[in-house]
């Protein structure tokens, strides 16, 4: 290794470490804050280093808020959204990839176009629609608009397009139809992508804030990200409690990430078009 290469490597390492520190600091600060008493948090003595281990904010969050309800709501809605999004996404992608019907190309272009519309732009019409359907403060109201995830269709279609034509013809000759082909060949062949898309959809749904915040006003139907706002309301500006709820809210996703780290990275790369 030349001297110049060594210097470049060292510089790159320093930049990476610095970026990592910038990224991790808010998490570190949230954790340190959550372990302090409220008075300590706002006092002049509070420094950057952890100086107190006080779990009262966690006890408050767990026993004096609806955190467990919000957990259940978040798990329930995220699981339903993930399952339905994957199922409808793969079936739609299968139709667009493998079936001949009039308007197929136009339909795919619509899916592509909808991928380019930011979710925020749809909030108002979706709210009006859900209101007209009487789905405000209903599970259907939370879930339905989150079921449209064009990127799942696009990614599945890319993978289905890559399956050799002969594979489909072999199934047809073996006496199978479209459902056999999709569920017994295409799905097992693309199991990795299904897992990856499932994880990313679950995380997106778990973290969804804007829509559930607009469509739900009753506390017992809130998901965790929306519930955090209630902690703020109930206790005034209670920084330690807010941080502990935020950390508890993120915990399942962090644990899931640590377990499926490789798959999540793969999913992010696939859905961002880095890998296909």
């Amino acid at each position: 290794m030349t001297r110049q290469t060594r210097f470049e490597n060292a510089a790159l390492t320093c930049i990476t470490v610095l970026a990592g520190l910038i990224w991790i600091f808010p998490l570190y600060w949230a954790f340190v804050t959550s372990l302090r008493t409220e008075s300590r948090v706002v006092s002049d003595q509070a420094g950057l280093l952890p100086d107190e281990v006080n779990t009262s904010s966690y006890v408050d969050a767990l026993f004096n808020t609806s955190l467990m309800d919000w957990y259940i709501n978040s798990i329930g809605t995220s699981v339903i959204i993930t399952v339905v999004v994957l199922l409808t996404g793969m079936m739609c992608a299968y139709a667009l990839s493998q079936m001949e019907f009039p308007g197929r190309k136009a339909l795919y272009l619509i899916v592509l176009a909808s991928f380019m519309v930011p979710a925020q732009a749809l909030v108002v019409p979706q709210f009006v629609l859900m209101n007209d359907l009487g789905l405000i403060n209903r599970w259907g109201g939370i879930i339905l608009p989150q079921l449209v995830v064009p990127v799942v269709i696009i990614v599945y279609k890319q993978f289905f397009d890559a399956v050799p034509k002969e594979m489909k013809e072999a199934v047809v000759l073996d006496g199978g139809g479209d459902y056999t082909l999709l569920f017994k060949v295409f799905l097992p062949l693309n199991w990795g992508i299904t897992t990856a898309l499932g994880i990313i959809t679950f995380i997106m749904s778990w973290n969804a804030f804007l829509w559930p915040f607009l469509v739900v006003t009753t506390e017992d139907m809130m998901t965790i990200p929306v519930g955090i706002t209630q902690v703020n309301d109930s206790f005034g500006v209670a920084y330690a409690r807010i941080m502990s709820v935020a950390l508890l809210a993120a915990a399942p996703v962090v644990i899931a990430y640590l377990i499926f780290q490789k798959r999540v990275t793969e999913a992010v790369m696939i859905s961002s078009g880095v890998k296909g």
Partner: protein
Amino acid sequence: MSGVKLTNVQKSFGAVDVIKGVSLEVPKGEFGVFVGPSGCGKSTLLRMIAGLEDTSGGKIEIGGRDVTNVEPAKRGVAMVFQSYALYPHLSVAENMGFSLRLARAPRAEREEKVREAARILQLSDHLDKKPSALSGGQRQRVAIGRAIVREPDVFLFDEPLSNLDAELRVQMRLELTRLHRQIGATMIYVTHDQIEAMTLADDIFVLKGGHVMQSGRPLTLYDDPDNRFVAGFIGSPSMNFIEGVVSHRDETGITVRGEEGELRVALQGNKPGEGTKVMLGVRPEHLEPVETGGLPVTVEVAEELGGNSYLHTRSATGADLVFERRGSRESLEGQTLNLGAQPENVFAFTPDGMRLR
């Protein structure tokens, strides 16, 4: 087992006619081979028999039953693809038993049939492996096994050996011949390789531009081609062709003189008049050095194959001629020779390619 009969079968893709009224029959238990250059329609024809392509016109019968509009799975055919089309997530046994599982066959029956097919194809030790753990030849055998398990009336092979190396291809060719003799099923095989066609077929169907140019036993096509295309396509190295004009005719045949020289052709039927343009064809093994007359050529390259050699020569007018030599290893490179042939071994064709007999 059943035979396959096509009557005036046609296929068009939009305005393009790909199959232009093909009629042929592969009798029950025979091995028929569709052979022809790329784009001649041979694979399309096979896919039409399988039901993977719709038929624009005509009738397809399998075992006397009109299957023209019957869905693929109900035609009683099984197909082996060039790319094997194995399901990578299933084991060899599961791949072979897939169709029976879809047909909800009892597990015991399924396993018995898979075991029997594996025994025939010497795959018994590989039943639990995934296709990715197999060699190319083994994968191809699994694809054939998947077809055998279905006990079809007709086996269809779409260039199944194209992905294998030369040695394995020869081995698989022999195995296919053995398999055909063992199970006695009707088989239709598509290839662009005329050696595969010659070695495997009971009947060869030579296709060009969506037409059957000639069909028959392999040696019949080799010895007695109907037209210039079949004469040139069947046989390796290809037949030599020389243009010329009839310079003399008598009861036994004609003498043709071209820029390269002169050859005599034996003809039984109508003989073209003197001055008529004809195309002569001579197979490499029928050309031989002669003392005088014939075609003067210079040997440019000698391909030594051990038992025989192919000598690539060039005439004074630039025509390339190949002749085969057996039993001598004397290098003739750079030498000038006169090549001749027995009149009965020289074919004559009209300028539009039809054979004169």
